């Protein structure tokens, strides 16, 4: 009997377990999944919790129910990995010997990395990247009567790099609904040179920010949070005052990677960006946010990685060359408030372009432009996530490799300026 061990049963680990359970013969393969948390959180829903659009019960399900019955599930912290010995030790004292390992431990926020950030944590300094943070921010906003709301990304890369912008757009909508938008100042301080990581998209989103009267402070590199003065301070000593500070703290991979000598300086595992195999250990594969591949850290990306991971893992088991290549495909809805959203679709080489998705001309989704259908797409993503994505089911018309169909290949910059 051989063992496939999967560390982490979040987005990537759950779909890998479902997919491999359907592919590997149960008479030959045992599949074991380890996670420290019994609950699965729909993290894209964290964005909507602070504004009361979703309730806590919308975003949580027990992990066991999302995994097939043939899979052994162990709830424990992973303490130690010894890839040379194909061995993993758990906090509950057990150790597991594996033939193949899939690492899907994701990434998490590390507020302790920034001096002063945790001083009044969840009092006037909030995150929304955790269930707890998003719920506490909901309670805070309910009582908030106006003031300066400052949002900051401490350091790139972060998971879901569009989430901070969406947060600002939704905040604009939320305070408008409550009739106090004129009493709220919204400021977004980012280390990036503009609104987003990809140039064309950045121009488009900067216009949306301006229209909504959201101030942007680019190239702001957070050094510390000074809660006595209620300012955040950058390395070049620029101060931004706040009444409530919403932070996307430094994101890091699981600490166990560093401990086990498998991670880089942010605990991400060096991974071949095309095969998804660990650069150091041939029987270790990485899916989702845990690796260092230069793709967006997003659930949709983990989903597109799945086909590649499956094909290469099966080839490797059979001693054949690995032929599947991941192209960095990402597909993200960007909620812009007032029932509108933008859709972007891109990969390692191609930045987001305007057009329609997935069908040329027909859409129904609009690329790099706002529409109401895109907003419905964003909301439908929750159903798709729980019912298709996690089960490793393919989504019709949406392929793991990015397609140029429906995209306008002319430089988007000229399209945007002529559409003004």
């Amino acid at each position: 009997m051989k063992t496939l061990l999967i560390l982490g049963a979040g987005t990537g680990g759950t779909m890998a377990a479902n997919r491999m359970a359907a592919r590997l013969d149960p008479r030959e393969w045992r599949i074991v999944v380890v996670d420290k948390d019994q609950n699965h959180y729909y993290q894209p829903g964290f964005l909507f919790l602070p504004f009361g659009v979703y309730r806590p019960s919308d975003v949580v399900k027990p992990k066991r129910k999302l995994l097939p019955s043939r899979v052994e599930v162990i709830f424990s912290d992973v303490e130690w990995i010894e890839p040379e010995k194909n061995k993993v030790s758990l906090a509950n004292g057990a150790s597991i010997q594996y033939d193949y390992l899939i690492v899907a431990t994701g990434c998490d926020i590390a507020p302790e990395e920034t001096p002063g950030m945790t001083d009044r944590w969840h009092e006037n300094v909030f995150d929304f990247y955790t269930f707890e943070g998003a719920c506490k921010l909901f309670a805070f906003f309910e009582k908030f009567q106006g003031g300066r709301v400052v949002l900051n990304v401490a350091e790139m890369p972060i998971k879901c790099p569009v989430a901070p912008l969406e947060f600002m757009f939704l905040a604009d909508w939320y305070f408008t609904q409550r009739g106090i938008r004129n009493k709220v100042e919204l400021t977004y301080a980012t280390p990036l040179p503009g609104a987003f990581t990809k140039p064309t998209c950045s121009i488009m989103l900067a216009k949306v920010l301006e229209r909504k009267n959201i101030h942007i402070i680019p190239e702001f590199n957070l050094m510390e949070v000074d809660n006595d003065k209620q300012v955040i301070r950058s390395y070049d000593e620029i101060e931004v005052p706040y009444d409530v500070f919403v932070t996307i703290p430094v994101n890091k991979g699981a600490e166990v990677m560093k401990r086990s000598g498998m991670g880089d300086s942010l605990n991400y595992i060096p991974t071949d960006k095309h095969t998804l195999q660990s650069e150091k250990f041939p029987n270790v594969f990485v899916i989702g946010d845990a690796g260092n591949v230069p793709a967006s850290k997003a659930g949709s990306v983990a989903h597109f990685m799945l086909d590649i991971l499956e094909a290469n893992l099966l080839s490797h088991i059979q001693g054949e060359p690995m032929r599947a290549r991941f192209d960095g495909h990402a597909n993200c809805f960007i909620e812009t408030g007032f029932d509108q959203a933008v859709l972007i679709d891109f990969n390692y080489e191609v930045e987001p372009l305007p057009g329609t998705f997935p069908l040329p001309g027909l859409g129904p989704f609009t690329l790099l432009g706002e529409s109401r259908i895109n907003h419905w797409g964003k909301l439908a993503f929750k159903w798709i996530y729980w019912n298709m994505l996690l089960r490793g089911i393919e989504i019709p018309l949406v392929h793991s490799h990015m397609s140029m169909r429906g995209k306008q290949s002319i430089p988007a910059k000229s399209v945007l300026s002529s559409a003004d």
Partner: protein
Amino acid sequence: MTAPVLENLKLDAEGFMTDPSQWTKEIAMEIARQEGIETLTDAHWNIIEFCRKVGQQSGKAPTLRQITEGAGVSTKELFALFPKGPAKKVAKISGLGKPEGCV
């Protein structure tokens, strides 16, 4: 107008050199000037050399954290030497591609 030392350089859309073997110290000094750094001190060169070394070994520009950990400078010092986005700035001056952290 391009400075004479920068002529015939292969650059990407954002002004990063695409062929690190074209790099010379004169090029570094000129790019630094364009990025607003008038003179490169020993402290600057120490970091540039570290980045060149990482670039040669891995084919990639180091991230901010790799620089502070590997070249023995604090983040604060790094920002003083290469204001605003040090990882990007030093990668550009060192003739490497854009650091991959920015996705």
